[in-house]
């Protein structure tokens, strides 16, 4: 990037020129606008308390201008800081307005100076911390640790209730076999429906549904019950289809069906 040759703060030495160049090239290298301000402030004075915030604001705004001219994308917080510094600059340059409740430009500048000083202090503190004798680098812990031997023993626990429940569980397993239907004595609704469809067309007269049960399903009560239920369900289905009519004279009276005459 050849723009780096142009100086920001009229650097006198090669180092400073390099630093100014780095400012533009390494925009991503800054840890935010405050960090950038801190770096810029180094070209002014070493003592942050003596720094000219106004000059610093100028430098920062100049930096942002330059970055824009070079079409370098600046993150939003750099632009927010630029706007704020432009505002601060105007407050510092204009005579104070006695009617406003807003803090004076001097107060705002003083706080910025404080922030810079504090950031610088934290940076130095971090360096001081890492300059200490560090564990694993300068100071060492026991190398051959005689780790505490832990003798683990497991005590298994069971209560009388657990025992009784376990016994109850094994002893009653047989009583709880799943119920399996005996298919031989079961008529399905499909079977009844097929049968009924074939038979009901023949009769226009009312007839008990029991008359429709198959011959061999009459005798055994279990088979009769199953067949009756299936035939009844099938007749309901046919009535729904409009093929038959269904009636019952009274509660528990025989259920009768007949072919429905087509209109």
């Amino acid at each position, binding site marked *: 990037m050849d723009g780096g040759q142009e100086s920001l703060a009229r650097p006198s030495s090669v180092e400073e020129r390099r630093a100014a160049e780095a400012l533009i090239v390494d925009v991503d290298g800054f840890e935010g606008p405050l960090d950038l301000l801190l770096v810029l402030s180094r070209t002014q004075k070493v003592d942050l308390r003596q720094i000219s915030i106004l000059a610093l604001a100028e430098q920062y705004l100049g930096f942002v201008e330059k970055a824009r001219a070079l079409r370098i994308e600046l993150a939003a917080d750099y632009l927010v800081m630029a706007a704020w510094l432009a505002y601060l600059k105007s407050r510092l340059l204009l005579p104070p307005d006695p009617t406003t409740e807003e803090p004076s430009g001097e107060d705002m500048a003083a706080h910025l100076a404080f922030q810079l000083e504090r950031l610088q202090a934290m940076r130095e503190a971090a360096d001081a911390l890492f300059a200490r004798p560090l564990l694993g680098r300068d100071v060492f812990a026991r190398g051959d640790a005689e780790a*505490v031997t832990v003798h683990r023993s497991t*005590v298994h626990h*069971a209560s009388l*209730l657990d025992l*009784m429940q376990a*016994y109850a*569980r*094994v002893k009653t*397993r047989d009583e709880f076999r799943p119920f399996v239907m005996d298919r031989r004595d079961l008529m399905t609704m499909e079977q009844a429906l097929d049968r009924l469809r074939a038979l009901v067309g023949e009769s226009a007269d009312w007839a008990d549904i029991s008359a429709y049960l198959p011959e061999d399903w009459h005798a055994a009560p279990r088979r009769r019950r199953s067949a009756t239920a299936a035939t009844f369900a099938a007749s309901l289905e046919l009535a729904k289809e409009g093929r038959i009519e269904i009636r019952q004279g009274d509660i528990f009276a025989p259920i009768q069906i007949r072919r429905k005459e087509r209109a």
Partner: protein
Amino acid sequence: MTQQPEPAQFDAPTRAEAARMIEALLFASPEPLSTTELGRRLPEGTDLTAALEELRARYAGRGVELCRIGDAWAFRTAPDLGHLLERHAVETRKLSRAATETLAIIAYHQPATRAEIEEIRGVSVSRGTIDQLIEMGWVRLGRRKMTPGRPATFVVTEGFLDHFGLSSPRDLPGLRELRAAGLLDSRRAPDEDEGEAGAEQENLF
């Protein structure tokens, strides 16, 4: 931390300085250091023997002692303090379902053979399950059964009765009482551990 004066770089260290250095080296080293190795690490001209002798005397009778291991040196905890470095951790765990059932069957049917237990549980009983109960002191071998093959039987112990607060196995509540107490609902509680049982539990149905 006390900052010590840096020992002179090129002069041989005094005996006290050398002892300090060996102390730090042996402390930080994961394994014993041989005299050759120590010599390599210390400034030239160090009188190793004298320094090691001083250190050995210094640590004699302390909680940590300087030990010679073959040709090497290391700090070791004084043997009489070994007990401080041990800890006993006791973990309480619920007896597995397989073990509880097996224990219950032995308690209710004793003396019970393995075949009998398997018949009642409907699954085979792993050797480990009975071993565990024996190890816990709740079950022991009873008399062999006078049937073909003379199979071993298992019975519950005094320790078992003691643990469960029973004066005799006859005190165990019968099935009728279990039913009255609502314990015969054989639906499994949802929190029961199926995992352990699973291995042994073939489906009965």
